[in-house]
């Protein structure tokens, strides 16, 4: 997940790409070529996307079909302020505090990884009113 975001304040940006051939802005980034026009990877330039958007839809999953996923977890469709609509995991695993239309932002969360170490993963959380 490290290659998907850029650390920064007040919250991490997403590592998007913009195509110099057709102008498409996309996330996640890929090392191969543009899905819309077929331009090669050399024409895909980094385009940071602000880690902010609004919830379009969200669901809480209570059934895991693989052992490496712990339930419940909540996934949202998020319309980024910078255009693309993405899917992300919310910090609120039960989704009880969330509503469609909520303003949300990225946050890095420490997570237990292999052999007692931890890594940091990107989640979205509800943005507190300023």
């Amino acid at each position: 997940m490290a290659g998907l975001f850029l650390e920064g304040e007040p919250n991490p940006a997403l590592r998007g790409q913009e195509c110099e051939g057709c102008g498409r802005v996309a996330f996640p980034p890929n090392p191969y070529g543009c899905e819309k026009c077929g331009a090669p990877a050399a024409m895909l330039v980094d385009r940071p996307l602000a880690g902010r958007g609004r919830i379009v839809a969200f669901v809480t999953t209570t059934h895991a079909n693989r052992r490496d996923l712990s339930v419940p977890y909540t996934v949202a469709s998020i319309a980024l302020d910078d255009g693309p609509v993405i899917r992300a995991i919310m910090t609120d695993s039960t989704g009880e505090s969330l509503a469609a239309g909520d303003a949300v932002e990225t946050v890095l969360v420490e997570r237990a990884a292999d052999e007692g170490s931890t890594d940091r993963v990107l989640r979205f959380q509800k943005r507190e009113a300023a």
Partner: protein
Amino acid sequence: MRRPLRDYRPVHVVGIGLHRFQPLSETTYVELGLTAIREAMADAGIAFSAIDSAYCGTALLGMAPSRAMLRHLGASGLPITQVENASASGSTAVRQAVLEVASGMADVSLAIGLDKPAPIRLAHEAAGVPDLVNAYASPFTHFALLADDYMRRYGVTAEQVARVAEKNFRNASKNPHAHRQKGYSLAEILSGPNISGPLTRLQCCPIGEGAAAVIVASDDAIARLGLSRARSVRVLSSTSRSERVYDPGADPDTELTRETLAMSCAEAGVSPGDLDVVEFHDGFSIEELLYVEALGVCPPGQAAGQLARGDFDIGGRVAINPSGGLLAMGHPIGPTGVGQICEIARQLRGEAGPRQHPGARLGLAHMVGIGSVCVVHILSAAD
């Protein structure tokens, strides 16, 4: 120049056969497949030696399953090909058989759908393009998000979405080949267990084992082999597409389905409103509502209401998933798309017994495969 199927010589479904879709058992895949193929040969009145080629749609069995099965029908030396196209593997096997007969390279071709449950390894997970959700966005979470979005957009309730499953269980209660033959009530469907968002377990298709077989033939073969013309069903179109880039926020499966359905109707020369029976990829209840609207037989946001008043029942305006669909007939992967063709052919022959849609003349079968791909066939009854 690119030409649609109807510009080639006519292709007809002349034989159908099924092994029941069911939970994993000790039955070998060979036994499953032979049951379906022998039934299809008996249905057509055709010997294995008269079949020119075979396509086997399977996603989970592993390398080279077909000859180990087909040799027990008398090893004729026919060309055999495995077809893997995710959930659309069986539909794609049908398409390959249809194209081979249409082109004239075969007179009679066999499409088989065959699978037994096994661990699924998705190649795209190794594509080197991770995202923020990866395995968290399993199919049921993906479709639950679409359900949540649809319900908000149109003010539809979870109970209205669940009525898709209620209808399809009712249809499958009259289908001896269905995985789930118990006609679950709406209360049972809604009572859980919950899987993701509004989707309960009975709104997610069961993945079991089974087999389906379809034999397609040319006019020449029908005449030469003395097959029944009255029971033959014409294949009007065979259409296959893969996902493009759609507007931000649009569901790719629905948009891919919309354009593939439109293309298939245009190639067949039929209007969506003329269809009598439709088998949709209802892997999850919400899909049927999305795809009914994508077909254009119902305005956006109104599928739930029209379903509730019986428009999509057997005997309604257009019978949707008379077999029970993936939710109730089941989704053993390879067999599913071939089984849809069996159901449409049975309906168009007027041989569907207690689940016959009266006066069925025109039918459509639709599958989506993860990735995404979409395959649509349109069939018509004999004149």
